Every structure is written in structure tokens, then in C-alpha cells.
């Protein structure tokens, strides 16, 4: 199976004046056609930046300094702007965290979807583009789609807006959809609906998907494989089932045990003490200050990402530790 997207040794930095802050530090992973990959980690782990870099939409001042991003055989980091533009919203689409702010308040939903259609099919007339927009809104489960084309985003609820965003993203029939925290800003009941929709569309349309999230429950529902990021690095990469049964990295274990679903009713939620370091990373393993299995050697040399069967893990004790998965 050849990879649809292959990111290798990606480095992203924030540069201002003379100060350089590393944000993503040598991340590599692949996504196969039709596969759903979860990219998880706490805030500040670099997961969203990694996702944004695939569309070359990094915020100002934040730059990719090394590594390659190959999508469908094309190197994206050196692709010209026009080539990149043709990929975006067409073969490679993205939806964002906050549907309340991600739609332009000054234009109708129909206008914004039709515009996405026409951006990649020059010569499409307005009526065709509108029909396509109706089709897409139907697909994502918005009732009375044709009537709602004329609505402005403020007339839509949060969940409906996210559906509209998905409709817009899928209008170009992308081969890969990147969903950046697609449910974080939504109510819990709506979250489940949107996740279900994403999972269904991913299978029905046979597209690949990257779900960026801090919520391992989302990954369990939707994804085939998972990449865990910590402090700008990949610390564990595994098939979802394997990961949930037996994580190899102490951070993965911590994330799983902190899920409310894995806590017995009435018991206190477990947390990983401390916070993700930013800017200056600790020497040795970056997770060692928060790790329950730390040894003196962990503080000295930074561990490499090594393969262990189907799993890749960045922990020098991965072979000896028997970590607990989700219940």
C-alpha cells in the first residue's frame, strides 16, 4: 500500500527577530489512501501546526524549516503557490476547530460552498455550482438544503455550521480530509453526530482522513491508526487497537488513563501531573519530568523513535514496561 501523504522529518519553528522557538521537531508519519489517522496530544504538542503545514497554511512568523511533505507523489514544501492553490480544497481539504468563526459572516452559506466548487472547476456556471452546493448540504444531513443556501452563517447553529464546513470541504471530492479538532467547540451531543458523520463519509467516499484532536475517544471512534505527539515530537505511532490495548509510551498510557471513559464510575479522574514544556525542552527524554517511570538515564540522552512490531515508540524503557491500556 503506497502512502497518499507522507510527512518526514518535519521541522517547524517560530522566528521573531533573533529568537527561534522550535514548535515541531522531526515528525514523520504516513497516511494511506482511504485510511483514517488520529493525531493526538495536549495543546502545545504541535499537532495542529503539523496539520496546517500540509496545506501550507502556517500562521505568519511560523515556518517549516526542514523535512518533506509528499502528497500523491508531489513534494508540497517546494510546490509553487498556484500548484498549492489547486490542491487545496480540491484533492486536499481541511476543516477547522471553530465553526462559529470559520465561515465568513458576510456571505451566504450557498455562496461560500458554490465558490469552493467553482474555484476548482473553472467554467462551472452558477446554477451548476448551486446544485452541487445543495447536493453537498444534503450529503452532510442539512434538511431543506436548497432553502438554506440563502442563509447567512449566523442563522446556523454550531453543529450546522460544522456540517456546512464539511460540505464545503468535501465539495472538491478530496482524497485527504484534515479535520482539526472538528468537535472541540461543539456541544457534547452534537460532537457525537459530527463524529458519526465524519466516520460515515470517510468510509462511503473512501477518502483518507487525519483527525487532529486531544480527545482519545474521538480517535477510538473514527481512526485506524494513531500518532501521539508530545512537545513537538512523535512519541508513539500505532494501530488504534494495539494502542488502546497496550500503549508503549508512558505518555500514551497517561492519556488513555485520563479518559473519562476509562475511569470507574465514581472514581476520581486521573491526570498527568505538570504541563507540556514550551520553548526550552528538558534534556534527555522530553517527557521525563512528568513521567512516572523515569530513571536517571532518561534525563541524559534523548531517545530515538524505534520500531517494536507494528508500533513505533520514543522511550528507552518501552521493551521492559508493561503499560496499561484503556479498560
Amino acid at each position, binding site marked *: 500500500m503506497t502512502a497518499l501523504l507522507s510527512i518526514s522529518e518535519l521541522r517547524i519553528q517560530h522566528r521573531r527577530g533573533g529568537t527561534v522557538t522550535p514548535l515541531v521537531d522531526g515528525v514523520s508519519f504516513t497516511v494511506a489512501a482511504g485510511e483514517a489517522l488520529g493525531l493526538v496530544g495536549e*495543546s*502545545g504538542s504541535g499537532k495542529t501546526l503539523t496539520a496546517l503545514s500540509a496545506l501550507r497554511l502556517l500562521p505568519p512568523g*511560523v515556518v517549516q524549516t526542514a523535512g518533506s511533505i509528499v502528497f500523491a507523489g508531489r513534494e508540497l514544501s517546494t510546490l509553487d503557490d498556484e500548484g498549492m492553490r489547486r490542491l487545496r480544497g480540491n484533492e486536499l481539504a481541511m476543516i477547522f476547530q*471553530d465553526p462559529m468563526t470559520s465561515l465568513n459572516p458576510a456571505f451566504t452559506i450557498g455562496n461560500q460552498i458554490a465558490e469552493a466548487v467553482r474555484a476548482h472547476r473553472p467554467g462551472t456556471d452558477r446554477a451548476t455550482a448551486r446544485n452541487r452546493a445543495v447536493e453537498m448540504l444534503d450529503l452532510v444531513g442539512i434538511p431543506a438544503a436548497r432553502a438554506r443556501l440563502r442563509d447567512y452563517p449566523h442563522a446556523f447553529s454550531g453543529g450546522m455550521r460544522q456540517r456546512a464546513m464539511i460540505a464545503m470541504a468535501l465539495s472538491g471530492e478530496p482524497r485527504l480530509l484534515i479535520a*482539526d479538532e472538528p468537535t472541540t*467547540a461543539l456541544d457534547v451531543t452534537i460532537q457525537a453526530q459530527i463524529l458519526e458523520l465524519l466516520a460515515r463519509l470517510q468510509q462511503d467516499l473512501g477518502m483518507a482522513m487525519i483527525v487532529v484532536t486531544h*480527545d482519545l475517544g474521538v480517535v477510538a471512534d473514527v481512526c485506524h491508526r494513531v500518532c501521539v505527539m508530545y512537545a513537538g515530537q512523535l512519541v508513539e505511532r500505532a494501530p488504534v487497537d494495539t494502542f488502546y490495548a497496550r500503549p508503549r509510551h508512558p505518555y500514551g498510557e497517561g492519556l488513555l488513563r*485520563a479518559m473519562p471513559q476509562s475511569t470507574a464510575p465514581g472514581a476520581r479522574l486521573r*491526570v*498527568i501531573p505538570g504541563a507540556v514544556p514550551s520553548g526550552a525542552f528538558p534534556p534527555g527524554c522530553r517527557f521525563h519530568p512528568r513521567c512516572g517511570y523515569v530513571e536517571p538515564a532518561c534525563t541524559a540522552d534523548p531517545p530515538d523513535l524505534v520500531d517494536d512490531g507494528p508500533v513505533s515508540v520514543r522511550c528507552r524503557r518501552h521493551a521492559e514496561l508493561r503499560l496499561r491500556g484503556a479498560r
Partner: protein
Amino acid sequence: MTALLAPARPEAPKIVRWRRWRAPGGTAVLVAAGYLVLLSLAAVGAPLVAPHDPYVQDLAHLNAPPSAAHWLGQDDLGRDILSRVIFGARVSLASSLLAVGLAMLVAVPVGLISGFFGGIVDAILMRIVDGIQSIPPLVLALVITGLLGPSLRNIVIALAVIFSPTFIRLTRGQTLAVREETYVEASKSIGSAPLWVIRRRVLRNVGSPLIVQASTSLGFGLLAEAGLSFLGLGIQPPQASWGVMLNRAYAALFTAGWEVLPPGLAIVLTVLAFNVLGDGLRDRLARRDGLR
């Protein structure tokens, strides 16, 4: 879960921080503040700093261009322009400063009352504020000084009237916010917070935005004073203010046009300094409040 995965929207604060890093540096603010300090010192110590008496006429050298003795030249009565710019700084700065002070003295209590009592009191006060703001500020100042009669005192009153609305709105907004907050806290214990509790809290919170607004108003005050005095409705000759000097320079425009430059540049630089200072303070406060 809470400690591990909160905040709920993990990436948003970071974007805000990137934006903040791009805020311009503090050098301009320092230069502006330094200039204003020097100018104030020169204004206060004008008799010591000025090379000549600003009122002594030298009829042999009317409109004389700059020379070794008179660095900025002499005006239409032969008076030393540099000395008049320095003495003019006194009057111009004083009128602006007094006006801002008077405006705050009146506006802060009014804003407090408006925000605290709300309802009909607030509605009436705010309509009055709207009414004042419906009259173009320069026109309002002209009418007030024109009818009261031109003098330093009346300029101060006129400027205070046109500055008040902004200060009232600022204080009122702050009071509303504080009232909302204290209501939430106090309702748990004693019912509602009395005026003095709110006043103390408002005064503590409104301080920084008032200072920012004051800085901008000081600049505008200079512009307005210059306009009023230029039209003869402000400071009266022979007393020097930058506006009065521009009035004299206008009279000499066809014979000694360069005379518009010294007082004009003094105004531009000083207003610029006040605005840079105001913007700088605003950025700094926004940053402080954002990081808290």
C-alpha cells in the same frame, strides 16, 4: 481530564500570542515620552531656558530670518521666535492639560452615576452625551469660547466639554462591568454591592484606559487650542501660544512664509508624541491584561 486536556480550545490562545509578539517595539514610546518630559521642563522653566524675552519687540528686524542670535528668526514685531515657541509651550500645554483634568473631574463621577444607577438616570445622561457628540467638536468649542468670550479659562471650559463624552462613556462602561461582577459575587452574601464598593473598584480598573484616553485627548487639545487661537477666539495676543503664533505667521504668510514652520512643527511633534505615547500605553496595557 481537566488538568490534562484543558483548555477546551487548546490552539486558540497561541495564535493570539503570535499576533502580540508582532506588536511594535518600545523605542518610539520612549522617544515620545523623553521628548514630552524635555518639553514640559522647558515650558516650566521658560524664563530660564528661553534665550530672549518673548515680548520684547525689535522693530529694526521685523520678520528677520534665523541668525546666530535668533536661531528661529524674528516675527512680524521683531520678537524672538524660539523664545515665543518656548513660552507658547506653557500656554498650549497648560490649556490642554487643564482641559483634560477638568473633563476627568466632571466625567468620572457622571460616568459612575450613569453606570451605577442605570435606568432612567443612565438614559437621560447618555442622551445628553449623544447630544454633545452630535455637534462637531471644533464647532462646539468655537461656539462656547465665542459666546463666553475668548480667554484661557474659557478655552479650558470649551475643551473640557468636548472631551467629557469619551471619558463619561469609558467610566460608564467600566462601571457596568464592575457592577455585573460585584453583583454576581455579592448576591451570594449581602444582596447587592453599595456604591462605594463599586466606586473603589471602578476607579482601580478605569485608571489605565483613562490615562490612554487622556494622552490622546492632550494631543487633540493642542490642535483645538491652536485652531481657536488662530481664529482669534482663544489665547489673546501678545501672550504667546502656538495657535497665536500661527495666527501671526498667517498674517505674514506672503512676506515671511517660513514663520509658519516653528509653531506648526512644535504642534505636529507634540501631538505626535502624545499619540505615540497613548498607542504605546494601550498596547502595553492590552498585553498585560491579555497575559494575566
